[in-house]
């Protein structure tokens, strides 16, 4: 029963994943990704990892995908067609990044191929207790796996900054109106609006 | 022509006419009750008083209708003294005139109303009761007299004396008991009584047939021409709410009918009603009688014309007959069709109706006889028409009242003959295969030519029944289809349906 369910869910997840890259409409891509996440959460649930399942839905389906949707709705689809016409210029930075990324991927693959992931006693104990309780997860995350955890978050941060730098449009020199806004000390409507714009920008929402 | 000064302007006046005519001709609105341009002036009402200065004499107030035009006279119609005189005159006229304008049929086109607004004072000073007289005195079949409203201008008396020259009315009684009366209260006679209601400046003489029928401001008035005899009097056709023709009234035309018209034309309203006695229902669109079918089936007018074209193209021995009510425009189109069909068109010329008189009525009921004759139509009596129809295979009978005039000959034809009838009202005859509706003469625009060669204009006084195109356009369609059939485009007419 559980096995059948697992295979069904796994198949569905793979199907959704294919949908993500094959769907023509970005909206459908996002929805497929959502489906994949939900399937994954169900697989976690099947395995007894309730917290993981909840976190998966909460973080990915509830927050990240909403952001994706937001971005998709903001996208100018007419511009996308132009992107398809003009292949991206490959810059030196890109080459370096590509080379580095490939090397890292190869390294991870080689690592996986060369040795099995250590099946330590602590992990087994944790598995035995299940993931229902927070404490073992918290303990594991903040002691044994602290370094990878922090490294991962740092990586995410770096990615975010990189995305901002890449995606940010060159701004025209500030016109008199914007300068006036800058001078505008007490917060009236215009000041608030520009504040909000900057906030959105800061939050990676624009 | 005599030169006079009118309100400070130098104008030319006809010395043969009274001063008031010159005033009216040059735009000075001098009130008048007893004066009528078509009647002798008697100067009895005194409402037309104006100020006249002649030579070195001080200006004086004179009645403009009884004053001949003299060289160099200075006329001031707007002088304060003239206004005063008129207002005083009006006050006397109104002293006994009942204020029943809400009831009176004349309200809205009443001279007393108009001049009271123009000249009068808004309120009466009299406290005595008004005189009581007969408010419903019948003067024959046509006219009803309201003695209280009468202002004794005597226009009606003079009209009967001067125009039909059958003096029957007089002012009877003395002083405040004066009334208009006939001898021994005999009813009025003659074919021109209706004009009395027109000449009466107030609501004293009214038409019995128009009594309380409509408020005059609700009537839409259109230029038209009387269709009851070949005189073709100029008239206005007055229509209530776009539907009912309520009134025909004479329209001044110096060359034809002056200000008058006869009663037989004035009261020829019945046939314009929805249901007319002795006549079939109006055709909206067209009616077709299929092979062997006993009933007429309503179809669209263009389909009816196409059926007619098929019939005319498919058979020999054609006859084209027209109604004498066809306009010149329709006649010309029909003449071309007749020519294309290889025949000469004739028009039905019914026998004289015996109403002829020396004044207006010609006794000939064909309003466009002269015009159709000019177009090459042959005048055919009903018997001659019957003979033509009897010898034909297919007939084209066109025009308002054509079917009505030829009802018996058409009914006599057997079902093997084919008649295409363009008529306003439906006719049930076995030979009539298709009937296409046409507008009547109050529903079309066009031209008639009267017995003396004068042009009479017709304008659309009301809309024809829905789906009924103008006869000119139906005929144009017929002509085109016949031309196509002659050019060998077989079946084209059918396809156009």
């Amino acid at each position, binding site marked *: 029963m559980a096995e059948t369910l697992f295979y069904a869910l796994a198949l569905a997840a793979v199907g959704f994943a294919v949908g993500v890259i094959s769907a023509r409409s970005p909206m459908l891509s996002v929805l497929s990704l959502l489906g994949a996440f939900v399937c994954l959460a169900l697989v976690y649930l099947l395995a007894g990892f309730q917290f993981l399942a909840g976190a998966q839905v*909460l973080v990915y389906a*509830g927050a990240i995908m909403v952001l994706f949707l937001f971005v998709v709705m903001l996208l100018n689809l007419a511009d996308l067609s132009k992107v398809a016409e003009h292949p991206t210029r490959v810059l030196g930075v890109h080459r370096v990044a590509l080379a580095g990324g490939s090397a890292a991927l190869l390294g991870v693959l080689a690592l996986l191929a060369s040795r099995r992931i250590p099946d330590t006693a602590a992990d087994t104990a944790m598995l035995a207790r299940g993931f229902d309780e927070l404490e073992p997860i918290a303990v594991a995350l903040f002691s044994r796996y602290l370094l990878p955890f922090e490294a991962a978050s740092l990586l995410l941060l770096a990615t975010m900054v990189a995305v901002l730098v890449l995606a940010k449009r060159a701004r025209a020199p500030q016109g008199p109106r914007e300068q006036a806004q800058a001078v505008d000390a007490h917060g009236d409507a215009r000041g608030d609006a520009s504040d909000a714009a900057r906030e959105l920008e800061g939050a990676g929402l624009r | 022509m005599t030169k006079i000064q009118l309100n400070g302007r130098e104008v030319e006046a006809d010395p043969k006419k009274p001063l008031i005519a010159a005033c009216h001709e040059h735009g000075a609105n001098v009130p008048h009750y007893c004066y009528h341009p078509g009647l002798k002036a008697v100067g009895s009402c005194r409402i037309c008083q104006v100020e006249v200065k002649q030579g070195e004499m001080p200006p004086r107030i004179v009645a403009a209708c009884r004053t001949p035009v003299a060289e160099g006279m200075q006329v001031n119609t707007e002088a304060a003294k003239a206004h005063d005189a008129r207002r005083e005159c009006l006050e006397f006229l109104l002293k006994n005139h009942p204020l029943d304008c809400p009831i009176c049929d004349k309200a809205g086109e009443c001279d007393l109303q108009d001049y009271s607004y123009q000249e009068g004072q808004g309120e009466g000073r009299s406290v005595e009761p008004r005189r009581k007289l007969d408010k419903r005195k019948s003067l024959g079949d046509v006219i009803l007299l309201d003695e209280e409203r009468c202002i004794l201008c005597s226009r009606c008396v003079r009209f009967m004396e001067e125009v039909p020259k059958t003096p029957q009315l007089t002012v009877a009684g003395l002083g405040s008991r004066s009334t208009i009366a006939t001898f021994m209260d005999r009813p009025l006679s003659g074919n021109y009584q209706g004009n009395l209601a027109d000449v009466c400046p107030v609501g004293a003489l009214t038409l019995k047939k128009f009594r309380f029928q409509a408020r005059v401001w609700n009537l839409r008035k259109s230029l038209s021409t009387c269709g009851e005899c070949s005189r073709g009097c100029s008239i206005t056709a007055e229509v209530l709410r776009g539907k009912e023709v309520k009134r025909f009234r004479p329209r001044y035309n110096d060359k034809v009918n002056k200000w008058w018209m006869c009663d037989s034309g004035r009261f020829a309203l019945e046939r314009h009603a929805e249901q007319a006695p002795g006549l079939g229902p109006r055709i909206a669109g067209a009616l077709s009688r299929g092979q062997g079918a006993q009933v007429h089936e309503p179809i669209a007018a263009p389909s009816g014309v196409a059926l007619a074209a098929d019939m005319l193209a498919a058979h020999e021995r054609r006859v084209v007959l027209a109604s004498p009510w066809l306009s010149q425009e329709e006649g010309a189109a029909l003449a071309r069709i007749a020519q294309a069909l290889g025949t000469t068109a004739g028009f039905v010329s019914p026998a004289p109706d015996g109403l002829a008189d020396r004044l207006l009525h010609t006794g000939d009921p064909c309003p466009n006889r002269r015009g159709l004759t000019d177009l090459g139509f042959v005048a055919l009596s009903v018997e001659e028409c019957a003979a033509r129809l009897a010898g034909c295979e297919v007939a084209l009978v066109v025009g308002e009242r054509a079917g009505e005039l030829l009802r018996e000959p058409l009914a006599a034809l057997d079902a093997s003959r084919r008649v295409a009838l363009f008529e306003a009202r439906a006719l049930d005859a076995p030979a009539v295969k298709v009937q296409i509706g046409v507008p009547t003469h109050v529903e079309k625009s066009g031209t008639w030519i009267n017995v003396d060669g004068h042009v009479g204009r017709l304008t659309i006084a009301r809309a024809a029944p829905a789906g009924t195109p103008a006869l000119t356009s139906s005929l144009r369609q017929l002509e085109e289809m016949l031309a196509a059939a002659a050019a060998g485009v077989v079946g084209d007419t059918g396809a156009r349906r």
Partner: protein
Amino acid sequence: MPELPLWLVWVIKAAVIYGALLSVAGLMSLAERKVSAWMQYRIGPNRVGPFGLLQPLADGVKFMFKEELVPAGANPFLFRIAPALAALPAMLAVAVIPFAGEIELFGQRTTLSVTDLPISSLYVLAVGGLGIYGIILGGWSSNSKYSLLGSLRASAQMVSYELSLILSILAVVALSGSLDLRVIADAQQADAALWNIARAPLAFLLFVVCMFAETNRHPFDFAESEPELVGGFHTEYSAMRFALFFLGEYCAMTVMSCLATVLFLAGGAIPFWPDAPWWAELASFLVKMSAFLFLYLWVRWTLPRFRFDQLMRLGWKVLLPLALFNLFATAALMAAGVL
């Protein structure tokens, strides 16, 4: 009394709880109109049934029989399922709310909730958070600028406020040491001073504010925003699909009110009556929940809507730092042994 099988008891419980949820949602539509009327010196609906109590029923019948329109150019599939996506998560979330303690039902001892999960608070947040998809997809698929703007706002708002909401709950979770709502509720049982509203007042405040934002209610109902967006995401909806959006909204409000009751007001606990029977607990729970629901209406008919930039500023510059501070402060106080 014969013992009923466990699954049947469970079915009965689910049916009762979901019936109650839908009834509450229906009654909320009446309450909304009644309360708004009272606050505006009016009477409100009073024609259908006594005091207008049957108005939701009449509305439902009307919605059923209205014509359903799909705008030209809309994405028909998404347009059709969006209302269900909006209503379903809110209804699912109610499954783990512990309305009362153990009860004796047809011979089976059971708890008065559809199910008990060890991570129930996480479950409520996760499932409840999915409700926004209905709004976003409904607005996007309508092919209308107003709807699209409503969706955009809904997604930005959701992202901005979910963070603060979770952080405020985390403080409570930290206090109780469990993600299980029943455990959280029971931990507050003993004494009114131990209720989380007393122990973590800032978290309560933050939660209440975020609760309005998460359910798209005044003063944060930017996705609807009638004056600017003529209804926002549901501009193009009609008939029962339109009603489903509202059903979802009222269910979400009910769930949030339940959550607030459990997290901060100790669920069905009654002060100074520790061993109250289950029906008293249930009644007390319902009273507390109703108070939150009334708060929703009260605020809606009192406060004006924020401006969008104010919303963003409040979310990112005020609530988020406060929530972080609250979490750290709670943790610090716990470490210091004060709490």
